[in-house]
């Protein structure tokens, strides 16, 4: 029987939204306050949803501790308390939460030992969130 297991994690990170392909004026017009060159930060909530058959011996889709370990090593250790703009993955990518969501999905997708990554949701603040869904 297929079920889904979800887990929420938090990271704190800073970023500055700025595209090298836009002029300074265009950057300000596009990103507003988020274009402050000194950066600003968020407490991001990353919600990971994994789908798969419920194991008949354990009653679980996957081992929570194993999921925590993957998310910690692939995502939390990499981004928590860092400046996202300085990460290799954002050298040619504006660290919008859309792009962060995609990057997190890609980092986790092939690392799970059980279950299939169905969705990553990144909440940038309490009022906005972004989702990347397996297609």
């Amino acid at each position, binding site marked *: *029987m*297929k*079920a*889904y*297991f*979800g*887990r*929420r*994690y938090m990271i704190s990170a800073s970023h500055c939204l700025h595209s090298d392909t836009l002029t300074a004026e265009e950057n300000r017009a596009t990103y507003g306050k988020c274009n402050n060159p000194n950066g600003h930060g968020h407490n991001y909530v990353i919600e990971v949803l994994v789908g798969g058959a*419920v194991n008949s*011996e*354990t*009653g*679980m*889709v996957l*081992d*929570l*501790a194993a999921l925590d370990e993957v998310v910690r090593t692939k995502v939390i250790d990499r981004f928590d308390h860092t400046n996202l703009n300085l990460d290799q993955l954002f050298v040619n990518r504006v660290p919008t939460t859309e792009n962060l969501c995609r990057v997190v999905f890609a980092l986790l997708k092939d690392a799970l030992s059980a279950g299939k990554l169905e969705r990553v949701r990144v909440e940038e603040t309490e009022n906005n969130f972004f989702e990347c869904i397996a297609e």
Partner: protein
Amino acid sequence: MIYLTRRATFSASHFYWNPAWSDERNNQVFGRCANRNGHGHNYTLEVTVAGEPDPVTGFVVDLKWLKDLMEREVLAAWDHRHLNLDVPEFAATESAAKIPTTENLAIAAWNRLQPAIAAAGAQLNRVRIYEAPEIFAEYRGEP
């Protein structure tokens, strides 16, 4: 199609134990959850029903009706109970008993709610159960 969701909370105790396994393997796989004296959670049950709003009432289903159904079919049996001892789906005395993981709770809640929702002409879309604010499982009726 409109998706309507109702939440309810319940508190229950449980432990994880597979009787076919040795004590050692149970402790290894389930860790602290294998403590047979049990531990507890404040659970949140989220039930999502899909359908078209009724042309007269504007409702997919009456929320009060859904609240009462959740109360009657799930909370009355699970709230302030020990899932392994008091709830048939998980009771050790039952041969087909499941381990009361959050995944199995979502499936069991679906099985308790689905017939009445179908009989009311609506479609149960999803049951999600939070065992803590940052941990949840869901079931969508898939085989």
